[in-house]
């Protein structure tokens, strides 16, 4: 369904992506792991043109395009087939939860208002926020804001959901509620690409794990393969570092 090849991106002299390939099939849950600065977030942002890649090719259903020279129409088409969940939620501050979710339907996709309202309510109900329709973002907790962010993303029925470290800005006790929503979506068959540091999520939910470092994919495979029998030295080092928490017995 979605295939990108040889994605390259530099910020000044800093080569952040040095040719990254990825293939995503319908229903895939792809988790991208890696130390900070490895280019995971930049890669995700290149997929919906929040960042313009310096090179690379994208095949997304009937769309075939160079990433660098993609026209306005193509960019808009890709964005309408995807939805992005941000690390910092980025909810529209001047809109209520319900309006946040409706915006992508009524404004960007010209869905009639009544239908948009029903879909927005259904999306908020799904993330467990039926009691918070008319709250502004500033009136919600971080976990609730991120769930609105997810509702905003799923309401438009995207082909692919892109998650950029969706739990990194959250208090530890709020992470659970967001992960629970994401697991639910995964079970329902959503296609997701998730950049995260939540190893348990990767282990439980992902059917494909990608380990990135230094702007390239070092290793990829099934969750089981990566977590139990990693081949590359760098993967092993990384996993040892991040999974160390689990080794301790207090």
């Amino acid at each position: 369904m979605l295939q990108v090849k040889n994605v390259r991106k530099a910020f000044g002299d800093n080569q952040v992506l040095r040719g990254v390939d990825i293939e995503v099939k319908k229903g895939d849950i792809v988790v991208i792991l890696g130390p900070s600065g490895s280019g995971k977030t930049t890669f995700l942002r290149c997929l919906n043109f929040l960042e313009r890649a310096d090179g690379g090719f994208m095949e997304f259903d009937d769309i075939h395009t160079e990433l660098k020279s993609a026209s306005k129409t193509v960019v808009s088409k890709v964005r309408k087939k995807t939805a992005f969940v941000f690390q910092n939620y980025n909810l529209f501050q001047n809109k209520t939860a319900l309006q946040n979710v409706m915006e992508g339907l009524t404004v960007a996709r010209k869905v009639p208002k009544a239908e948009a309202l029903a879909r927005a309510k259904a999306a908020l109900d799904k993330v467990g926020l039926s009691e918070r329709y008319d709250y502004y973002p500033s009136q919600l907790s971080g976990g609730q804001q991120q769930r609105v962010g997810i509702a905003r993303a799923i309401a438009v029925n995207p082909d692919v959901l892109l998650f950029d470290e969706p739990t990194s800005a959250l208090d530890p006790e709020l992470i659970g509620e967001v992960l629970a929503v994401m697991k639910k979506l995964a079970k329902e068959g959503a296609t997701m690409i998730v950049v995260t540091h939540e190893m348990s999520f990767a282990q439980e939910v992902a059917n494909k794990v990608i380990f990135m470092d230094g702007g390239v994919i070092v290793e990829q495979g099934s969750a089981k393969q990566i977590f139990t029998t990693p081949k590359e030295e760098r993967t092993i080092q990384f996993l040892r570092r991040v999974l160390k928490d689990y080794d301790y017995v207090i």
Partner: protein
Amino acid sequence: MHLNTQFMWETFLDVLYGIPVTLKIVAVTLLVSAPLGFLMAVSKSGEGRVGRRIIVAYVSLIRGTPVVLQILFLYSLLPTALNYLIKEVLGLTYNIFNLDPIFYAYIVFILNTTAVLSEVFRSALATVNSGQREAALAIGMSKIQAYVRIIIPQALVAALPNICNTTVSLLKSTSLAFMMTVKDITAIAKIDASFGYNYLEAYLVIFIVYIFLCSAVQGVFHLTERNAAAYKRPAAS
């Protein structure tokens, strides 16, 4: 010392006729300057290099010179220049010296306020987190939709206190319009005073009038701000 209260009351009644003139200058100026200033703020933060230089030069020219000087300069320059343009270049017979001087007041205050507001809007746009724009684009909105529906409403709320300041100082600056023979509040007071040298009384009267007008403007902005910033308030729970 003795204040002529009878004169003060009569002056007050006369001055009331100047209020619409003053408010007209304020209103016309804001209506023209706000969109212009906004466009300048947007293009200044945009990509066009040449446009940005012109705007920077214009803003520093206006902000670096006293309003009084701008009035004296333009009021000396414009009528003669326009007269030359109309008679010699266009070959028309219209007598520019019959033009209501309020138009010169509009020009001076629009030039001034546009420069100030462009800076107000520029800083207000900068307060809106770039994530707001990204979220709007990511959900499929066009750049213009993102501006109109997400960024501008938030920037306006951030700009309101400064727009209020600008409006109040504009209202006060309009008192300089008497130099261009516009019959505003100040001009009427001066004319009344000149008959019997009651300047102190006349100025006292318009002191009060200006205080009243400026307070009214601030009151209106205060209410607007409270309504517009509703989304920033924590929920009553």
